[in-house]
């Protein structure tokens, strides 16, 4: 197992290097000079300011040297400073991570408590009217754009549940109840589309498992149906679902942009978009790198968890 973990971690290294090269190249791939673009909105630009920005990006050095200087800073947790506010990017990211993390975890929780029971029920009643309804709801959930769902939820609650609105952000530790009230709509919007995906996966694997011979054997032994479903079928059907859940958690972390914008949540997504709108490329570079690394880390953890849970995976 230890050897498998080491091998899996080693396999991540080239991907991490690739990500770092792509993110580093971001400011070089922009058509035109990044310094000119950043200074585009400033009317009077002094030569010192221009040179300061050039030096900040290391543009006066060869590309390879620039990359290694940048990488050595990144490895030490220094993502540079914002071109507009001059604030350290890492500091701002760390301020915003808890918001995105909370939104993702709440959506994830909603996903798990709705999707898995519905998936099991749908598979157990496979072919029935309830199953057909669940499948249609699943497909609808998968097809509805989460930002439209968010807008519709805003519309419905503005008519019937205005108490769910609040104009300004309140942190979880500042006022937990207020914070949760504020997070209900965003997490519902983000969670439902993902719940549809998890439900479909749970249903598909459960249907497959329920046709296996060991389920027939369990029934033939006279086990109660509840035991057959929960102890024998579910345990085996959940393995691929766990993988998908992990992947979706990563996607929720890295894909909550629109939901954060709609509900004005001060998370990583809003931060990145602000950087894109204002052409603050160091900020974009730092945030994209942070989210991508987080995503890779979650995927790695899911892989390791899967290997731990599934005895069929070979460690050699």
């Amino acid at each position: 197992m230890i050897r498998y973990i080491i091998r899996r971690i080693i396999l991540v290294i080239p991907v991490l290097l690739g990500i770092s090269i792509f993110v580093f190249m971001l400011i070089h791939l922009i058509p035109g000079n990044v310094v000119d673009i950043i200074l585009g909105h400033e009317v009077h630009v002094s030569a010192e300011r221009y040179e300061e920005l050039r030096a900040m990006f290391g543009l006066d050095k060869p590309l390879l040297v620039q990359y290694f200087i940048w990488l050595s800073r990144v490895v030490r947790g220094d993502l540079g400073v914002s071109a507009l506010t001059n604030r350290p990017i890492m500091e701002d990211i760390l301020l915003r991570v808890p918001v995105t993390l909370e939104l993702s975890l709440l959506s994830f929780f909603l996903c798990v408590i709705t999707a898995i029971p519905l998936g099991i029920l749908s598979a157990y009643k496979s072919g029935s009217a309830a199953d057909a309804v669940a499948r249609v709801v699943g497909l609808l959930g998968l097809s509805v754009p989460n930002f439209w769902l968010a807008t519709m939820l805003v519309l419905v609650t503005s008519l019937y549940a205005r108490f769910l609105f609040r104009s300004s952000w309140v942190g979880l530790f500042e006022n937990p109840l207020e914070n949760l009230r504020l997070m209900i709509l965003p997490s519902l919007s983000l969670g439902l589309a993902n719940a549809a995906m998890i439900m479909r996966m749970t249903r598909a694997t459960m249907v497959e498992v329920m046709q296996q011979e060991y389920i027939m054997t369990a029934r033939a032994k006279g086990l109660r149906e509840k035991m057959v479903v929960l102890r024998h079928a579910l345990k085996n059907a959940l393995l691929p679902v766990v993988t998908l859940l992990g992947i979706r958690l990563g996607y929720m972390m890295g894909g909550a942009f629109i939901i954060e914008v709609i509900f004005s949540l001060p998370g990583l997504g809003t931060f990145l978009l602000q950087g894109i709108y204002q052409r603050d490329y160091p900020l974009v570079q730092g945030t994209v790198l942070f989210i991508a690394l987080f995503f890779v880390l979650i995927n790695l953890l899911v892989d390791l968890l899967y290997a731990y849970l599934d005895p069929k995976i070979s460690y050699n």
Partner: protein
Amino acid sequence: MTLSVADDSPLVTQRKRAHRSRGFWAVFFSRMLRNRISMAGAVLILAVLLVAVLAPLLAPYDPDAVQIRERLQPPSAAHIFGTDELGRDIASRVIYGAQISFYVGLISVGIGLGVGVLIGLIGGYLGGVLDAAFMLLMDIMFAFPTILLALTIVAILGAGLPSAMIAIGIVNIPTFARITRGSVLSVREKDYVDAAVVIGAKDWRIMLFHVLPNVMAPIIVQTSLGLSIAVLTEASLSFLGLGAQPPTPSWGTMLYTGQRYIEEAPWLSIFPGVAILLVVLGFNLLGDGLREALDPHMKG
């Protein structure tokens, strides 16, 4: 009473021969026609496609015609979906929006399909260092959530519909590459490929005429699902102001504007959203149905 026929009976052999001689596309269409889910999706997509093609005939008004005195009118006989903040007819804009969605979907999935299938085919068939390099590149692209990669590419290229299409196309590449490569790896070991090698066929010929036709099923399924992702991603980018720019009647841009008037004029948001939902649902149904029809293991 059931009739059982032995596998090697003349009847089964005759059917197998007839099945083979019909070719991939004939089998594909007959299975698709028999699958209710894929047919529901196909009908839905065809209906929206028809609306897109016939937009100049179907739209009651010019989608860009501004009539300030008519602004924010609720749905009525004159404007069945109401009007927007500039008095433009929403129904006409939703109808023309279908053109944008199909246009973006086809171009971007075309990019993803073309490049991805090429990478998967060459990498999977030739193997070795080239394959390892291709797959590492795909792994790196997979390391970014779809919308993050699309946003990053748009940040590089600048906002606008062409950038959005390129971004969505690039985002689609790794999925097509992985799916093609996976199928190529199993087809590569088949006897008919060995036979082609033995008679001295060139690699490109084997890939194009012997391998590619036999890995088409999963690619077709992914094309349908890729189109649904493309429509959703374009709408998301436009909603964020990074895709189609005003006054282009993109559904995402319409939703972005609608959000500001959600309480006083919800029809601005309802109809473009339903249009996105229908198209994405259509492609998802088609993809799901095709997967069931083409892959017997997925039935259940």
